[in-house]
């Protein structure tokens, strides 16, 4: 088995390398073919697919193909096996075991807890961020893609542009700004990042920086795109470069990461074929949810408007502004009360949240393939795209001037209706308001239309010549004439039917002006019924309006009113039902009616709970309702209740104001439960009762709860299943594997959707908030005027929701690692810019490391290749959130800008960071083993704090601090009259110390983390300027040209050690006398003359002399030789040096020129920037 797996693994590898274009030499032939195809101008990766049919393959087909391919490989493998089976057997059992365990391990590593997807409905357009260094072709790529999708030429890429890319998919293209702030924000909203790389130049720092930021903030999908490949003239070189860049790209992401090649430009555009392929790759990407984003709602702003009253701006141009931002809601559901963080601006609470119709909707479901041209919508208001702009209360249609043709206002009047089209005539007649109404009505044969049209201007309704059925319509508005018109109803029904759908539509449109859209279900109902409904509706509407306007009317009253009115209405209508029972299509509207009344009841219960005033009166009312509701109440009760409410509300309110906080407040009625008829009431609630009865009770209630919906059974089934699962989960959650978890989460989702679908729109909104994927309009008040002033569509705005407790400020602990490409290590308490969650802020972290005993020891600098802890003050983020640290925000800096990456561990106030401290003192008086130490402490109080602490001398004698020295003892040596010095400690040692000893005490002291954080307000300044916050010490020193402060004692100096002079050993005569002879100092007298051996001369013999002379001569020769060698060496070295110097000169010159060129280009860029300002 293991053999099989190993073999398969190998075959996979071979397959991959051939697919990607050959890295191993054994597949050179295949690879060559691949390359050829690339040169033909198609992406290397796409080349595999490109010879297959053009429309995207279905999943099944793909799987099939893969299977077939694998099968083929397998068969080949099997053949091989048959020829030499021994070659694929294991030679050792150990190896087999190892391979198997590795395979299992690999399998295990793939497993992960499935993330629960809680997005319901259509997803928002996926954000495709196009990122790259400047001048790499970002906007051109977006333009090409837009052209590909919509067949429109885009003049300029400003802000996000949404495009319908497929039947079920929309994408939003965003160009990533070039500064690091924009990159950080872009990484937070990107679903797919297209990293553009200049193939002719190679990778640039921006790409790697962006990749790092992406990785920390969740790592969305990434695809590389190589551009500028037409600059290579040499095909071989091109191939080599591609290969090199691809492998570098792979090491950064993962082996086999997609790198796309755009071969060059044709007429200033990327080739159509390649853009098409790229678009297909984009369309097949799958996006997995990222943990931060699934728990926080966010909006990528694609439209921005300043809605401050103009008067206010005129008075003070720097007043705080109100702005509205528009965009698709992503991440998770948004609730109205939520606070948001606007990246680069600050935290705000939303003052208005509205869902708008989708400006770029998906095509309605149809069976056809592909998109029709009409459905290829796009929307990018900042780029001036999209003809419709939606607002809360209006829709704006944008029509270019050259498309507009105004019809002539005055044609000859007589011609109307003669030679013109009907529609045209109608429009013309509508334009011309001079005509009297009745004239037109009589003359035109499309009077039905005109009737309805005429209704629209309401104030014109003073005509007295309106036909009978017009009264109907009036009744719909006023409701007073209902009784009058009732008998007309049945006779008119025929005409209504003949009207067709158009008329009914129009009828709907008319009341829309008055009220609201809730009449949808009444489409089939007859006109008269509608009138009833309008009346009903209007009443309630009016009531609620009254309630809002009149403060003296309590909320309870309103709700009661609603109840009573609705009830009375329904009873009225019931009566009617009986009257007109003979009519066929009655049942439908009746159904909806009962539904409505039921609904209103439930909303009433909600109103009682969530009404404005928190009075206990409501509760009382509610309790009564509970009891009364079912016992077919008469209206008297309600009215009485209302009166009570009016009278008593004030008093009750006050009484509850300071009510006791008590969960147990059930007032028992005190029935006698011994009586048979009383206890038999609840007999079925016990297992001793009738089980089927009880089951029925439960079933019934479930059905009721589900609003008598048609899919009752389904829901019940889902519910039942789920409950089983839940209990199962409770007792055996540890055993559930990933597959079960996945199923479970899917079930949970289904259940949620089912539950939510039961609710009507409003209560659904109240419960779950705005769904993801809706197009939102968010109003934010009191933003600084700079935000409007310096708004730049090239820098997309990100609005992110803030979770619970995330707006609070506190200490946070993160595990941080300096980035290995950052040149310097980071210093404690140096300001650094962090990006956590949606926020970016500057703070001053203190670095620390955990000692073995759990102590957090401060580090002055971050370790070079290790993680360390960092603690700082700032807005809190939940644990496991990624953090990016940047020290330098400037744009034209060659080095890598990301200083460190980190993850949040916890937010903890109590965690203390300690640092080592050494107190040094000197003995001022020494008794036997006790010494008085000065200069260690400054006061006696300090000594009291350190009593019992261990001290030590440099020589290693240990001791202990005892107490502050008594004044008389410690200071008696001082001259009289001087105030005795404080801070002299009495210490005892294990041995007598010397006056020359230095005594020190080692202790730990707490380091306090500075309470400083400064949000980056990059959106409040011109985007070109670089944000400056707190400066680091080094920057300040450089600015003021201050030298580094140095401690003189810390300098290294040459150590001078004088030879120690010892005095002569003197032994007393008495002692000498007692010593044994050998130990006695011997008395050796000084000699006047040297010894004989020193004085005598040596005379050599003849032979001896000869030998000596020879030796001397040989030595001389050797010395001469060495001298010569040395000279030649010296000469050669000098020659070499001269040559070196020359070469150096040349290279220096070259470098200087290179530098000069670079500076010139940079300077030009800078000038251009300045020019733009």
């Amino acid at each position, binding site marked *: 088995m293991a053999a099989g797996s190993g073999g398969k693994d190998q075959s996979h590898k071979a397959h991959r390398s051939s697919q990607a274009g050959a890295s191993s030499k054994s597949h050179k032939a295949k690879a060559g073919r691949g390359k050829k195809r690339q040169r033909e101008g198609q992406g290397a990766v796409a080349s595999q697919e490109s010879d297959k049919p053009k429309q995207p393959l279905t999943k099944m087909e793909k799987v099939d193909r893969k299977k077939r391919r694998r099968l083929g490989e397998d068969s080949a493998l099997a053949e091989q096996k048959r020829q030499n089976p021994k070659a694929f057997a294991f030679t050792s059992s150990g190896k087999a075991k190892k391979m198997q365990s590795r395979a299992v391990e690999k399998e295990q590593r793939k497993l992960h807890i499935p993330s629960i997807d809680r997005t319901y409905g259509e997803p928002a357009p996926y954000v495709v961020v196009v990122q790259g260094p400047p001048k790499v072709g970002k906007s051109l790529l977006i333009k090409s893609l837009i052209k590909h999708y919509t067949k429109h030429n885009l003049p300029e890429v400003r802000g996000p542009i949404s495009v319908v890319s497929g039947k079920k998919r929309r994408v939003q293209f965003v160009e990533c700004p070039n500064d690091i702030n924009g990159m950080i924000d872009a990484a937070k909203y990107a679903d797919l990042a297209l990293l553009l790389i200049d193939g002719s130049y190679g990778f640039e720092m921006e790409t790697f920086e962006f990749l790092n930021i992406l990785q920390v903030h969740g790592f969305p999908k990434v695809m590389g795109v190589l551009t500028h490949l037409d600059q290579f003239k040499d095909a071989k070189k091109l191939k080599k470069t591609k290969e090199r860049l691809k492998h570098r790209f792979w090491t950064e992401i993962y082996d086999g990461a997609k790198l796309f090649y755009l071969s060059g430009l044709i007429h200033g555009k990327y080739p159509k074929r390649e853009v098409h392929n790229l678009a297909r790759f984009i369309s097949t990407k799958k996006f997995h949810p990222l943990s931060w984003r699934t728990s926080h709602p966010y909006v990528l702003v694609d439209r921005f408007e300043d809605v401050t009253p103009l008067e206010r701006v005129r008075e003070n141009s720097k007043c705080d502004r109100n702005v509205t931002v528009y965009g698709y809601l992503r991440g998770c559901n948004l609730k109205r009360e939520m606070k948001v963080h606007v990246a680069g601006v600050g935290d705000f609470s939303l003052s208005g949240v509205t869902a708008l119709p989708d400006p770029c909707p998906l095509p309605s479901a149809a069976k056809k393939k592909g998109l029709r041209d009409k459905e290829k919508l796009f929307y990018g208001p900042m780029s001036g795209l999209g003809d419709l702009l939606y607002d809360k209360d209006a829709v704006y249609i944008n029509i270019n001037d050259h498309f507009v043709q105004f019809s002539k206002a005055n044609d000859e009047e007589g011609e109307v209706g003669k030679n013109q089209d009907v529609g045209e005539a109608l429009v013309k007649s509508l334009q011309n308001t001079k005509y009297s109404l009745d004239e037109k009505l009589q003359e035109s044969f499309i009077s039905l239309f005109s009737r309805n049209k005429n209704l629209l201007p309401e104030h014109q309704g003073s005509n007295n010549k309106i036909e009978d059925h017009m009264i109907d319509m009036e009744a719909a508005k006023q409701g007073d004439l209902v009784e009058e018109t009732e008998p007309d109803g049945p006779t008119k029904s025929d005409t209504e039917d003949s009207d067709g759908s158009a008329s009914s539509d129009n009828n709907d449109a008319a009341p829309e002006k008055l009220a609201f859209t809730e009449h949808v279900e009444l489409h089939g109902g007859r006109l008269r019924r509608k009138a009833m409904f309008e009346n009903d509706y209007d009443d309630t509407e009016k009531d609620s309006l009254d309630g809002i306007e009149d403060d003296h009317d309590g909320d309870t009253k309103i709700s009661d009113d609603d109840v009573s009115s609705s009830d009375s209405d329904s009873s009225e209508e019931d009566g009617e039902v009986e009257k007109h029972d003979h009519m066929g299509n009655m049942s439908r509207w009746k159904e909806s009616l009962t539904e409505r009344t039921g609904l209103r009841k439930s909303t009433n*219960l909600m109103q009682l709970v969530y009404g404005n005033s928190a009075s206990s009166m409501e509760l009382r009312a509610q309790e009564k309702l509970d009891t009364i509701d079912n016992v077919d109440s008469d209206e008297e009760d309600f009215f009485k209740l209302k009166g009570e409410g009016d009278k008593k509300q004030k008093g009750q309110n006050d009484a509850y104001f300071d009510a006791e*906080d008590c969960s147990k407040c059930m007032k028992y009625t005190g029935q006698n439960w011994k009586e048979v008829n009383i206890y038999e009431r609840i007999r079925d*609630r016990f297992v001793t009762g009738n089980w089927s009865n009880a089951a029925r009770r439960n079933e019934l209630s479930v059905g009721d709860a589900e609003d008598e919906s048609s899919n009752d059974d389904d829901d019940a089934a889902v519910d039942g299943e789920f409950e089983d699962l839940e209990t199962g989960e409770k007792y055996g959650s540890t055993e559930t594997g990933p597959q079960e978890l996945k199923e479970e989460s899917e079930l949970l989702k289904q259940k949620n959707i089912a539950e939510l679908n039961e609710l009507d729109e409003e209560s659904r909104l109240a419960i779950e908030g705005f769904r993801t994927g809706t197009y939102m309009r968010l109003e934010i008040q009191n933003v600084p005027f700079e935000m409007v002033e310096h708004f730049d569509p090239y820098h997309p705005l990100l609005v992110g929701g803030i979770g619970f407790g995330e707006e609070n400020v506190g200490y946070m602990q993160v595990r941080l690692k300096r980035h290995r490409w950052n040149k310097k290590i980071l210093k404690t308490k140096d300001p650094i810019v962090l990006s956590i969650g949606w926020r970016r802020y500057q703070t001053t972290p203190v670095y620390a490391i955990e000692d073995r005993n759990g102590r957090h020891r401060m580090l002055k600098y971050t370790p070079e290749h290790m993680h360390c802890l960092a603690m700082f003050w700032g807005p809190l983020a939940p644990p496991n959130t990624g953090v990016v640290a940047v020290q330098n925000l400037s744009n034209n800096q060659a080095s890598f800008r990301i200083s460190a990456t980190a993850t949040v561990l*916890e937010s903890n106030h109590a965690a203390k960071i300690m640092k080592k401290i050494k107190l040094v003192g000197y003995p001022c008086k020494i008794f036997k083993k006790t010494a008085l130490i000065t200069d260690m402490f400054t006061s006696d109080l300090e000594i009291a704090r350190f009593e019992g602490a261990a001290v030590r001398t440099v020589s290693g004698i240990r001791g202990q601090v005892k107490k502050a020295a008594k004044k008389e003892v410690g200071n008696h040596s001082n001259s009289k009259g001087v105030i005795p010095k404080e801070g002299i400690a009495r210490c005892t040692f294990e041995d007598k110390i010397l006056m020359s000893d230095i005594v020190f005490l080692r202790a730990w002291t707490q380091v306090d983390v500075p309470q400083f954080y400064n949000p980056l307000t990059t959106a409040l300044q011109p985007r070109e300027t670089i944000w400056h916050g707190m400066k680091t010490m080094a920057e300040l020193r450089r600015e003021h040209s201050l030298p580094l402060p140095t401690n003189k004692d810390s300098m290294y100096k040459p150590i001078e050690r004088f030879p120690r002079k010892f005095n002569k050993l003197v032994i007393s005569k008495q002692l000498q006398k007692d010593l044994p002879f050998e130990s006695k100092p011997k008395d050796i007298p000084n000699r006047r003359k040297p010894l004989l051996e020193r004085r005598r001369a040596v005379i050599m013999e003849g032979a001896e002399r000869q030998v000596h002379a020879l030796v001397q001569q040989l030595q001389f020769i050797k010395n001469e030789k060495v001298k010569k060698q040395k000279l030649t060496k010296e000469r050669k070295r000098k020659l070499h040096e001269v040559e070196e110097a020359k070469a150096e000169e040349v290279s220096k010159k070259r470098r200087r020129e290179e530098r000069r060129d670079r500076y010139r280009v940079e300077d030009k860029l800078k000038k251009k920037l300045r020019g733009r300002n």
Partner: protein
Amino acid sequence: MGKVNYKKMKGSQNLRQRLLLSTLSGTPILVEDIRADDKFPGLRPHEVSLLRLFDRVTDDCVVEINDTGTKFKYKPGVVMGGRRVAHDCGVSRAIGYFLEPLIVLGLFGKKPLEIRLKGITNDSKDPCVDTFRSTTLPILKRFGVPSEGLDLKIESRGVPPLGGGEVVLSVPIVQALSAVTWIDEGMVKRIRGWTFSAKVSSQFEIQMIHAARGIFNNLLPDVHIFTDHKAGLQAGNSPGYGISLVAETNAGCCISADTTISYARGDDVGDMEDEKKELKPPQDVGEDMASALLEEIELGGVVDSSHQGLLFLLCALCPPDISKIRVGKLMPYGVETLRQIKDFLGVEFNIKMDTSTKTVILKCMGCGLKNLSRKSS
């Protein structure tokens, strides 16, 4: 650094929920007008004690109370939890008053909480500790709280007026709760109960049990009521006796009723009910509580009326999934809790009458609160 934006509220009502929700959602609150027009204005001793308890369990929390006690600021900190925490609850309210917010708070702490609470264990006003153990803790388990580490140990009893009881509560921590669909109330399959007597004759308990059984016997044979007679040190400082009854259904719901009979507090003025109860003989107590339990059962719902608040709160703290629950009649406390939840967490419940059974079905989507203070490994 930085200005703190306090959420302003008025009055002393719902102090527990306010403090709890403020801590969980990280919202600083400023409460004004606390019994400002009262004869004895300001915070009551048990409320101050509650503030102290919150201060003890959390870290970096700031409480400022003005001189008269009619106004205070509360800035929540990080919930720490930890072992061997002790708190004296005083004798103005029972321990049940403190336990209710504490168990929810403990779930979202940094470390598992183990706290020793001293004071009154049984009281007629608050749920007694027996009920807590038998009814409240199983509710928590429904929401995915691990059962190991969730415990309440009664070390000694204490009844008003002098208290002297002691309990040890341990609460585990969770990453997040799990949403429930809990609308099946089931049928009552057994009734359990606990009686206790401290510094009075154990005969009292027998009488209570006898009386209670007399009522239950008509409906169900499976009734067991345990006795717990305390004397000496474990009996606390005052005499008293009480009963706590729990009905368990075959769907796993627990419905409880309890009371305690003891002398009234000296300082509590005008609490007539307490005095009345004091006169009640054990037989009547047993009968009354049995009737109260049956009444609770008649109301329906998956929890009894006193646990509605806790149930709603737990539902609101779930991840953003739909929870569906059924309760009997909505109690004022439950309604107040619903309002506070909407105020702090922005979670609104969909409330619907179930007309056939006269119960109320509530639906909500949890706020998705995660344990922010938990340390990531």
